[in-house]
């Protein structure tokens, strides 16, 4: 019941916001604080072993069910905390941006939907909340209502719709293959039809992959995340894409976590996820390096960081019962990325409110005007690059250990995975050096005007500060959260080797810290070189970017459809013309027949018979002949009279 309340609170908040027009209370903040408190309550009763499941006993094919296990609690706590922090931030920001009330309503509705996804007990309920989340968060993306926002909204909506359809397809195929609707947290399935099951897993992979920004399905992400109002971006990048990761984890559960690869029902899944994860990391970071807009840079980094998570999941599946580190690292990175990415977006938002500018080349030297923001941003940037002492270090170390464990198996592609892992780390460091340098340290050629005016700054700093405190806390004591939440989550999935594997990683090994420091230094060097040579403002040609290829493909499909339509029209016109000619010839010949007052059949001359009568007679005779002669047709045994009378 607690779960229903947890979903209901934000809904009630949204309803209250819509009903009470002239209120002074900060309803979103109240609602999200309540959610945070309730979420910790749920966590406590889960820790005490309380049964956390709820089933709405509806008749019919849909019986919505909710449940909470250790994994959902990790996500729920991260979501609740993030929403709470952003609720502190957003009123002042949205006051500047415009239409704060509609934004607040959408934010609460999205919170409810996100909670629903994490608490869903079966895949149909999950899909319900997944779709609701898409619809609600769409209004974040189009909040500004300008051309760019509408375009980004299309990207977001259409990709999400495809995602939802793919998930539905996956549920159907897996349900058919296994004979029942897949449940969340039900462990691996044993399909009766492995082929269908395989297709189903692939469909789920695509569906959740779209939401997670997995290459090559990530095209919507940079547009959507950079166009939404900044608190919306923070939540989109911080949490909504993690819903995709959550879906991927649950998909992995259907194939089986923590069982040897040979026993898995989808042994290829780990390999596919690992490769896609590496591609995502690389593509994201490469694109991020070339961005000049702060929010787009962060958005591309969301793609890249999701790559880390997907890689972790892939390695976890690939290594089977030895893959504890991959899974734990991925879950840990989900939490950490939520924290620092939200903080980064919020920081950029502070700058935007005061300068109306997010282009990096028009900002510079802002640390003087915004010293606290600059400090908090520094922490977040160090967090994402994985500097020791901050939270990103913890999860990246775990993931790196997983990658090197996999590479030690000697398979060439796994060796390359580890190398590319390090390369992406350098790229991340380079692009955040670029962001931070251009924004706070360097000098712009034509700097944007700064107007420090209103009093909302304190709330901005409180919100970012809360995130930073948690980041530093995790960074200094990585074992705490790991032992309390992350490892139990992995164990709940069936990864029994998670605890010993995680315990085997000493976070403060000199090799790990030294590696990270070297990575950072290399990143700075790359950034310096890139800025000096102007490589960062290189625009890749269309054939090199997925978007260019996509628009070509779109144009190709359009042209093909156009050709098909033209061909159809021509064929149709031809058929119509032929029909018309046939009809007029028929009428003409009938008329001719009608005008002749007699018909000659052989030697018979039937004078004075109307042509229509003759036609009818001929037709009747033909019909009778055909009917009698056809072997397929036999008169019924009954006498003719009853056959005409149709007996009952």
């Amino acid at each position, binding site marked *: 019941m607690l779960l229903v309340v947890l979903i209901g609170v934000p809904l009630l908040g949204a309803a209250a916001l819509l009903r009470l027009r002239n209120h002074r209370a900060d309803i979103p903040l109240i609602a999200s604080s309540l959610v945070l408190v309730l979420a910790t309550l749920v966590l406590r009763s889960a820790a005490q072993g309380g049964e956390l499941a709820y089933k709405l006993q509806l008749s019919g094919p849909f019986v919505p069910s909710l449940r909470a296990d250790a994994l959902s609690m990790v996500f729920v706590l991260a979501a609740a905390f993030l929403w709470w922090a952003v609720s502190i931030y957003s009123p002042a920001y949205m006051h500047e941006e415009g239409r704060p009330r509609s934004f607040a309503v959408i934010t609460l509705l999205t919170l409810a939907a996100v909670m629903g996804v994490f608490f869903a007990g079966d895949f149909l309920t999950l899909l319900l909340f997944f779709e609701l989340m898409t619809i609600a968060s769409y209004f974040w993306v189009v909040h500004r209502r300008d051309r760019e926002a509408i375009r980004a909204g299309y990207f977001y909506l259409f990709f999400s719709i495809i995602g939802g359809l793919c998930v539905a397809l996956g549920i159907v195929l897996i349900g058919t293959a296994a004979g029942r609707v897949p449940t969340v947290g039900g462990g691996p399935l044993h399909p009766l039809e492995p082929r269908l099951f395989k297709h189903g897993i692939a469909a789920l992979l695509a569906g959740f992959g779209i939401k997670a920004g997995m290459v090559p399905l990530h095209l919507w992400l940079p547009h959507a995340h950079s166009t939404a109002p900044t608190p919306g971006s923070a939540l989109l990048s911080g949490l909504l894409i993690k819903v995709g990761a959550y879906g991927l984890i649950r998909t992995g559960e259907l194939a089986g976590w923590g069982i040897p690869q040979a026993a898995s029902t989808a042994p290829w899944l780990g390999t596919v996820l690992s490769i896609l994860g590496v591609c995502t990391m690389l593509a994201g970071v490469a694109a991020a390096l070339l961005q000049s807009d702060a929010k787009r840079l962060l958005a591309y980094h969301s793609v890249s960081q999701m790559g880390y998570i997907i890689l972790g999941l892939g390695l976890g599946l690939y290594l089977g019962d030895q893959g504890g580190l991959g899974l734990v690292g991925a879950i840990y990175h989900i939490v950490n990325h939520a924290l620092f990415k939200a903080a980064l977006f919020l920081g950029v938002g502070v700058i935007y409110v005061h300068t109306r500018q997010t282009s990096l080349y028009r900002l510079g030297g802002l640390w003087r005007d915004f010293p606290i923001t600059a400090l908090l941003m520094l922490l977040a940037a160090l967090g994402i690059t994985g500097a020791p002492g901050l939270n990103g270090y913890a999860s990246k170390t775990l993931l790196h250990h997983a990658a090197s464990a996999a590479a030690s198996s000697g398979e060439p592609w796994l060796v390359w995975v580890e190398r590319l892992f390090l390369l992406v780390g350098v790229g991340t460091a380079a692009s955040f050096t670029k962001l931070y340098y251009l924004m706070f340290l360097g000098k712009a050629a034509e700097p944007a005007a700064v107007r420090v005016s209103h009093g909302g700054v304190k709330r901005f700093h409180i919100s970012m500060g809360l995130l930073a405190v948690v980041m530093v806390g995790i960074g200094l004591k990585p074992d705490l959260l790991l032992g309390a939440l992350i490892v139990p989550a992995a164990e709940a999935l069936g990864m029994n080797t998670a605890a010993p594997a995680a315990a085997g990683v000493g976070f403060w090994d000199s090799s790990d810290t030294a590696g990270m420091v070297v990575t950072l230094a290399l990143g700075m060097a790359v950034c310096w070189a890139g800025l000096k040579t102007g490589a960062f403002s290189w625009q890749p040609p269309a054939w090199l970017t997925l978007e260019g290829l996509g628009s070509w493909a779109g144009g190709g499909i359009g042209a093909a459809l156009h050709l098909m*339509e033209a061909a159809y029209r021509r064929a149709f016109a031809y058929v119509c013309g032929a029909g018309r000619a046939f009809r007029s010839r028929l009428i003409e010949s009938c008329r001719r027949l009608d005008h002749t007052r007699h018909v000659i059949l052989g030697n018979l001359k039937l004078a004075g018979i109307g042509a229509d009568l003759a036609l009818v007679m001929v037709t009747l005779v033909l019909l009778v002949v055909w009917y009698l002669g056809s072997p397929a047709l036999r008169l019924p045994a009954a006498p003719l009279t009853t056959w005409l009378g149709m007996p009952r």
Partner: protein
Amino acid sequence: MIDLVLALLSGAAGGVVIALMPRAGRRLRNTVVLAFAALGAVFAWRAAVKALNGHAVGVDFGIGGLPLSLQLDPLGAVFGIIASTLWLFAAVYSFGYMAAEHKQRTYYTYLLLAFSVTLGVAFSGNLVALYLFYELLTFVTYPLVIHGRSEEAVRAGRKYVLYSLTGAGAILIGIVITYAWAGRLDFARGPLLAGVGPRVGAGWLLALFVAGFGVKAAVMPLHRWLPAAMVAPTPVSALLHAVAVVYSGVFGILRVVYSVFGHELVRQLSFGRFLPWLAAFTILAGVIIATRQDVLKRRLAYHTISQLSYILLGAFTLHPLGLAGAVLHMFGYSILKVSLFFAAGIIAKQTGKLKVSEMNGVGWRLPLTMTAFGIASLGMIGMLPLNTFWSKYHLMRGSAAGGIWPLALVLVGSGLINAFCFIPTVVAAFAGERGQPVLERGREAALTLAPTVILASLAVLMGLWPGMIWPGVESVVNWFF
């Protein structure tokens, strides 16, 4: 069984009464129309509920040795429930929409007569009755198609009649052959041709029936009358050309597959294995053509063609889950599509805009209408809080379980194209800034708006609780399998 007769008669009687009061004021006429429609709906519901609970509901009339049998089985009950309920909504909508139109007496007369005849199709207990009412439906809806009396309308009417009569001719030949083979024509005692087996020519007979009923079900390439018939007033387009008339064709095909041939026999025919792909082709081609239409009503018409084949696809999978999907889609699609058409009618009436490309900013002037339109659009994609998700879900399950899972891919693709078909319209309608005067004011507007919004909300409710209609679906499936 008296319910059946009374349900049939109330529509017909209402039509006659309306025709006999030429001088009646608008209010009186509307009251009479609503009263008779409601009466018919009540009786139809009573009969349908009885039939769904497994009671035999039926009556036979021997007319000159020709038994005109009215028997209600679950499938007919479902059709009866859908038609009679939506008729009420359409009647109320008409009061608002037709308020300023001419020839209202003719309009309401034939609207009520068509109600009666549609229920006749649903209630028919043998092929003779089905044929009779199917044929009659063409004639009583013809005056509604040519209501505007423009040259275009008359041409559309001619096309409609020609297509329908040709189809009916094919059905008649099919009926004769069926009788010759089976010796009976009633649906009550299992599939007619079950005892005959897959004999030579059975496939051709199936093709004949499918072509005959396929005209009204707008199976491509027999669909061309439907977009032309969109010249009719919007309530007619909504009710008849998106639901009642076209459903009579779909219903006929369901009858042919499950009551005349039986799913076991169809499975043995090679033509039966081809049928799902015919439906799949219509689904994709219809919706692709729809995206290219600029006139909103034509777009909706092509979209109807596509969606009707969802139902046929479910029926042709010959799997219980597929049939369940088909029946669910009969419910879900009709509700959403009527809502879409109603919204299109409101837009045309209030702003005079017929083309999609002109609709920028319409949403701010008609916020509730466009919201209903948007919700219905999401339903057409098959997104979850809407009822059509459940039909799509079951159709996909049916095709996967029936061994033809690529059909599920067709459904996914169709959902995506549906998004391209409607979402841009909705987004463009809410483009720009608000501030223009809202047009949803006044009595007429309320009469048109209420059915639109209620239907859209009903669709959401049924999406969250598909169990609402599940007993009906279950009894249809159990009846045939």
